[in-house]
């Protein structure tokens, strides 16, 4: 399947919008519940490698944006699937049934941003010690965080 066919399929998913960026990255923005379907479809069209699952905190828009980055070793192109979650109660379905690598990536994203992945087989902290909650959010405070000289 070439990129325009895949793009067509993506745009047919309710609530999703796909485009090809200037660096030929297929970018899809979709609602959270459609993400597993989109990832399964992309996996079938050759995007067999999930590089990472992570998130970006956007406090000004009150959102947390999840990013899934895929790569196709067949067509040598990247795909980036994004979804926007409500910052007060971020929750998304887990895709670890489709890509087993997502199991650990989702655990890390969950503890770093406070996102809940429903249906995750083994939730729990991965990297952080007890007592540290959602450190990668922009409003995280810790007494040892010191500002550096302005440039």
């Amino acid at each position, binding site marked *: 399947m070439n990129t325009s066919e895949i793009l067509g399929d993506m745009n047919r998913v309710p609530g999703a919008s796909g485009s090809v960026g200037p660096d030929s990255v297929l970018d899809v923005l979709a609602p959270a519940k459609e993400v597993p379907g989109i990832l399964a479809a992309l996996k079938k069209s050759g995007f067999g490698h999930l590089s990472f699952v992570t998130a970006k905190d956007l406090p000004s828009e009150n959102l947390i944006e999840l990013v899934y980055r895929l790569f196709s070793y067949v067509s040598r192109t990247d795909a980036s699937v994004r979804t926007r979650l409500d910052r007060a109660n971020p929750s998304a379905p887990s895709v670890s049934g489709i890509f087993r690598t997502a199991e*650990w990536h989702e655990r890390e994203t969950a503890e770093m941003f406070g996102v809940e992945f429903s249906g995750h087989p083994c939730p729990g902290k991965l990297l952080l010690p007890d007592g540290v909650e959602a450190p990668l959010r922009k409003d995280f405070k810790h007494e040892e965080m010191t500002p550096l000289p302005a440039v």
Partner: protein
Amino acid sequence: MPVQAPFELEKLSNKEYILNMGPQHPSTHGVLRVVLKLEGELVKDVFPDVGYIHSGVEKLCENRTYPAIVPYLDRLDYLGAVNLEWAYVLAVEKLCGIQVPERAEYIRVILAELNRVMSHLLWYSAFGMDVGALTPIFYAFREREEIIALVEAATGGRLTHNALRIGGFRNDLPKDFLPGLSRFLSSFEKKVDEYEALLIDNVILTARTRGVGVLDPELAVNYGVTGPSLRGSGPAWDLRRTAPYSVYGKFDFRVPVSEGRDTWSRLKVRMDEMRESAKILRQAAAALPAGEVSAKVPRVLKPAPGEAYARVESPRGEFGAWVVSDGTERPYRVKFRSPSFSNLSVLREIAVGCNIADIIAIMGSLDLVIPEIDR
């Protein structure tokens, strides 16, 4: 960090017990805790517990300027440092639209392949020590010292090189670098043959590693395994060949692959990779063009808002840096995708059903570096 393993004591049968291969262990290659459920010596379940060396580098980078982040990349995977710096620098150069001069690209390839050889030599030594062979480290470290001396003369640091800058390099290579490199390469491939004969082809090691830790290619791809651990199972996926970055498309080298799928195949792939790296080094040193080593980059770098992801083939697999810029001099978000993170997650699938000694051999063959898992 300290998480209860998902097997409780009440559910153990009366022959099973839980053994903790604690965070301090000579064979876990760093601060890694592996909780094993054992029946005698037979492993019933494996639970890797990471996070003991989590330093929050992704949060830290949000408070540093773009050029100041490069030294942190060295510390993530100290064995293949230049490859990691390259991923980050590539991402920032994509964001800023900086074109790096060709001489700088070739020098980057030379330093990165030297790092790859250094990393595989240390992997060879450490793997030997894990399985009980205490001699290979003394021999492989001779070659490693020669490379370290070369790289130290060029960059200033033995292991934490801080070699790359956004836009190229700060300084050109010193005058005696290329003669030193060709002196090193003149005897290197014979040494690799010797090291292979010493450890990899040894009858005891082959008996210990053949048929152990078999990793199916579909499972490996599903778990996001990349690098020599994946190529030992069949798929010839090497980013230097499939998605060439920089000038890798100009070199003639083979991607070592093995269909064996077991631990021994992964070992063999790494030895072959050292030979291919020597080939690339020869070609790069011969084709090194004259010219500038850095593009013009403003002192205070403020990329346009946007995001970029760059991936390189580090000695362990695909290392990627995802950089999000909001137009200021500090990045908004930086994410490092490290190969050992995904390579370790497959341990549970391949290690169940073997003995404890086999777990050590399997973890050694996956070539993990814990700081890049924990970041």
